[in-house]
């Protein structure tokens, strides 16, 4: 074998060894940062099967960890959001993990699982490979603590408001119709979840459309949710067989409070008439009471069926999914609104309803009733 061949073979073997998945040493590669006045303290961090692997010029960090926190505050914790950062510049390096629907009293401990794969450049300098930071904590009085870099205050307040709505709903059924009525409502929810169609939804970095598909401009239809403080007045979007592009709409504030954020959900109608809720349009707005504002995004959402079957989108209907007022309060649709036939068939249950349904599946009706009585 010539010297050149030996070198080439050596290089190949070295590359193969270098690219093998390697366990991560948490002491040198992970950094969990909590502020000095944080209302939670880290009790333990088990990095388990976390590994790093070299692919091309990037490092793939396969994180599987369970963090254990203690509530060191005097208030009950309802939700937590952690920012998990491998690098901030390009897609694939930044993620967050939130746990809503918590009920953690002062001094009590709770776990947060992180199961993520993140990318980072090989030559990213010294320091930890992964940075975990506290982005926010929501308390039972809807008070918030945290840096809020990811707008986790709004997200967690929305989840908690939905949770209270759904617990009220199930408690009312329990009081009016007894355990049999509650069981019936839970089984109906289970059946809706099983029948609810889901589409794969794809977001393009930078919001660009690169797979050109002939699209036509369509007038957006809107569900009129009577209790919504904000109403879409009119709107258009480019719709193709698989894509919803460049939505533009006019919103009117029907309330007496200024609004700073609105999220519009999309109900997509397929050629066969089937409808599915897929994707949302979040919009920072400045809507004074009674005022109107235009919202336009040059974004692209691309949809496909999970099984790879063909898709032919024919129409789109928008609905107000949640609203944040200027004073930080949020609005979510009431149970009457989400029982609108179009929404009830297609809308995903709230995290709390999903939790209660899972509790019923695992532990039965008594466990659900006990949970409802705790709040």
């Amino acid at each position, binding site marked *: 074998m010539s010297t050149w061949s030996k070198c*080439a*073979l050596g*290089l*190949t073997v070295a*590359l*193969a060894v270098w*690219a093998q998945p390697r366990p991560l040493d948490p002491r040198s590669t992970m950094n969990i940062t909590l502020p000095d006045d944080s209302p939670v303290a880290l009790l333990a961090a088990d990095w388990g099967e976390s590994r790093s692997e070299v*692919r*091309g*010029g990037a490092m*793939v960090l396969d994180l599987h960890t369970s963090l254990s926190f203690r509530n060191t505050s005097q208030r009950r914790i309802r939700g937590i959001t952690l920012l998990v950062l491998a690098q901030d*510049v*390009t*897609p*694939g390096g*930044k993620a*967050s*993990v*939130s*746990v*809503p*629907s918590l009920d953690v009293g002062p001094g009590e401990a709770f*776990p947060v*699982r992180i*199961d*993520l*794969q993140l*990318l980072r*450049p090989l030559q990213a300098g010294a320091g930890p490979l992964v940075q975990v930071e506290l982005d926010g904590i929501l308390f039972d009085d809807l008070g918030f603590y945290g840096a809020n870099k*990811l707008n986790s205050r709004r997200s967690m307040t929305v989840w908690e408001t939905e949770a209270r709505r759904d617990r009220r709903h199930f408690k009312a059924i329990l009081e009016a119709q007894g355990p049999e009525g509650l069981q019936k409502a839970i089984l109906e929810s289970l059946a809706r979840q099983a029948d609810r169609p*889901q589409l*794969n*939804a*794809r*977001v*393009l*970095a*930078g*919001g*660009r459309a*690169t*797979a050109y598909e002939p699209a036509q401009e369509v007038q957006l239809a809107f569900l009129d949710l009577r209790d919504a403080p904000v109403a879409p007045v009119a709107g258009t979007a480019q719709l193709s067989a698989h894509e919803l592009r460049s939505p533009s709409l006019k919103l009117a504030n029907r309330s007496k409070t200024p609004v700073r954020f609105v999220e519009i959900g999309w109900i997509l109608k397929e050629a066969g008439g089937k409808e599915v809720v897929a*994707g*949302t*349009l*979040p919009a920072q707005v400045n809507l004074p009471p009674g005022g109107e504002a235009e919202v336009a*995004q040059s*974004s692209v*959402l*691309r949809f496909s069926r*999970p099984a790879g079957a063909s898709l032919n989108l024919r129409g789109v209907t928008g609905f107000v999914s949640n609203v944040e007022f200027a004073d930080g309060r949020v609005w979510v649709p009431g149970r009457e609104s989400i029982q609108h036939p179009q929404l009830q068939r297609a809308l*995903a*249950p709230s*995290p*709390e309803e*999903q*939790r209660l349904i*899972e*509790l019923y599946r*695992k532990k039965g009706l008594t466990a659900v009733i006990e949970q409802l009585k705790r709040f």
Partner: protein
Amino acid sequence: MRHPDKETLALASGGDLGWWRRWRTQRHLAFCEDCRLEVEAFRKAAAVLREGSEPPQDLDWDRLAMEIKANIRLGLAAGEIAGPAREAPRRLGWRAAAAMAGVSMVVVSGLLVVAPFAPRSRAPVEAGVTAEATPAGIELKGSGGKLTVVGRAGDTVTVSARSSGSVAARYVDSDTGQVTIANVYME
């Protein structure tokens, strides 16, 4: 510091780089003011060109496509007729063939070992990186490959995508019943 060449910067300005080159170029641009200015200049030039080349409103695209296809077929047919006479291929000696086989083996082995993502079918023709929310979790896709960023087999999962550039997967842990929501950010 090694700067990307002009061609790469021009492609970056139009968002036409493949996943890996785009990622490397963005990394460079984050720290290099000169190259950022260069990319911005390319963007402005493209905008000026676009403004002056808007197609007429009443253009019949279907007819245009048919004409282009017909011209391509005509060109191919003409090429078959008028093309240069083909030379008989020259035979390689056994030494050259063995050397090429060795080089090919090393290159293919290297690519297999360090390929950024496993190759997939190229059904959707898209440049750049996309994040896709599926019932299996969240996948990062680019250059015909994919990376499963979030995925936990066996747990109930609900997914959603926001047009502002993030996708979310919601899990209910089958053991503890705890709900966990993972978000992956594209911006």
